């Protein structure tokens, strides 16, 4: 469990993190989203005690990171895959880490096996590809078998198979009851991996919500329609204030009324439909809409128990 309250970090004149409060809970993958420069990496550095907050507080398992007696047993983090001494072998990199927290030496072999680097354990890190370095970083994070895992852009530099492997690993770690916080700028990937999302922009919290809720609440109602009698249906739809646009597959995108209303309208006027498909926005579309600095985003007050956390004006 990671808890931030009023977390603030100022670098000179720049407010990198501005009063962030959130909780990252165990048992699910929490995606950490925001445009470049939104404060994701800074927030992670604050969680890990690398940088000191200007205001507020963040704890891991109820303690600030610097108070953890053996941090690698509780928290594993991958911040920068290239942050390893190139002259050291993969095995030796993990060996000094294990020594630093009195982690049994056999774990070094175990995590190398787990990330698929056992065969290159004795090779110097300098010669590693970015994908291999990324796997080594993950091995280091898993070394102490921690209950809290933090990954900053873990799929960077990985091929399709590697991305798939990371996704399954994260899901498995969360299923084992661990707290998993992962940042990524790849929305489609995040949509597949994360259960819960924390979205920040300009250092402030934009949303703290379940993935499904976020998409449903922020989706525009779009219905894809195909009909032999489209001309007549279009007139009826437009008369009711709907917007229509053709798509690339020769269908029409109907914005405004929900799918049921479109279907009922067609039935009432005896218009045949060959396709009627409700279309949910993708996370990417919702995200672009949310983080567009030209759009004043206001999170709706939700009726459910998963609150969209704050209201904030990106323009300000």
């Amino acid at each position: 469990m990671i808890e931030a309250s009023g977390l603030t970090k100022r670098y000179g004149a720049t407010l990198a993190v501005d009063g962030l409060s959130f909780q990252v809970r165990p048992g699910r993958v929490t995606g950490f989203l925001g445009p470049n420069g939104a404060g994701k990496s800074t927030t992670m550095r604050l969680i890990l005690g690398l940088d000191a907050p200007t205001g507020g507080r963040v704890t891991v398992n109820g303690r600030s990171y610097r108070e953890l007696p053996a941090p690698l047993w509780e928290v594993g983090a991958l911040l920068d895959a290239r942050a390893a001494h190139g002259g050291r072998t993969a095995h030796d990199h993990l060996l000094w880490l294990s020594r630093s927290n009195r982690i049994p030496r056999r774990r070094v072999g175990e995590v190398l096996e787990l990330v698929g680097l056992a065969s290159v354990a004795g090779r110097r890190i300098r010669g590693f590809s970015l994908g291999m370095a990324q796997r080594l970083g993950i091995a280091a994070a898993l070394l102490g078998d921690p209950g809290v895992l933090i990954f900053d852009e873990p799929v960077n530099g990985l091929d399709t198979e590697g991305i798939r492997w990371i996704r399954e690993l994260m899901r498995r770690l969360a299923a084992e009851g661990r707290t998993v916080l992962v940042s990524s700028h790849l929305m489609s990937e995040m949509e597949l991996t994360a259960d819960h999302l924390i979205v920040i922009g300009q250092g402030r919290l934009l949303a703290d919500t379940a993935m499904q809720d976020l998409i449903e609440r922020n989706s525009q109602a779009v219905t894809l329609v195909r009909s032999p009698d489209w001309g007549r249906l279009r007139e009826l739809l437009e008369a009711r204030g709907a917007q229509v646009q053709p798509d690339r597959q020769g269908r029409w995108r109907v914005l405004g009324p929900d799918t049921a209303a479109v279907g009922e309208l067609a039935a009432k006027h005896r218009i045949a439909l060959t396709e009627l498909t409700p279309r949910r926005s993708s996370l990417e579309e919702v995200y672009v809409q949310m983080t567009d600095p030209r759009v004043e985003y206001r999170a709706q007050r939700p009726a459910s128990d998963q609150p969209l956390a704050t209201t904030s004006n990106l323009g300000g």
Partner: protein
Amino acid sequence: MPGTIEQGRAGFAQALAAEWTKLRTVRSAVWTLAAMAASVLGIAVFVGATRSLQPDDTILGGSLTGATFGLLVGASFGVLVISTEYAAGTIGATLMACPRRGVVLAAKATVTAAVLFGVALAACFLAYQVGSVTLPDDYAQGVPMPALLGVAALFSVTGVLGLAVGTVLRHPAGAITTMVAILLLPSMVGPLLGGWERWVAGASPVAASQKLAQSSDAVPDAVGSLGGWPSLWLVCGYGLVALVGAAVVFQRRDA
């Protein structure tokens, strides 16, 4: 699962073990130490072969002529113990593993001092043996013990001073340049300072090692009348102050 959390610890002993492992698993650290020993020994062989020794010098002092250059390498070693962490980006991993920064710096200082002491003592002892065999008996012998221990200790303190400077400056090049200046400038600018020369030049680790080695280079006019051992304590004193200062900076700064 590796065990229970209670088995884990990230205290001084673990930091020490981690720093020692880091040191022995990187070639550049081993090479730097080898270069330090080689410079002390090589210059002793050169002095012995060419008999380039002042008539009033001692065999001990002549054998340890290379200590000055060796101290430069030892200082660089101390700088590299921390600045390579900034250069490679491993400082983040180090501080995530042991977030108590004072403990990290203390472990680094301990490993630096211990390794330099051992390597310098062996190198200086061998250099003295080389000098004893190759230099003619008409020179005064000098008293090797406990002087050699003192010279080796100077390597440790100079390395720790390098560690302190490296911690504050972070960049290897800038920190090594600073250490070269600290070690060599006092004897170079000393003569320009008149009555202050003996204080400025006399307080440097180089002067302390010359005094301990009973070298004829350590004339009171240039390096003061403070004896070899008090000079060592003086260097230890400001080395410790520098380390504490570096620890304060290290604590407060974002990694």
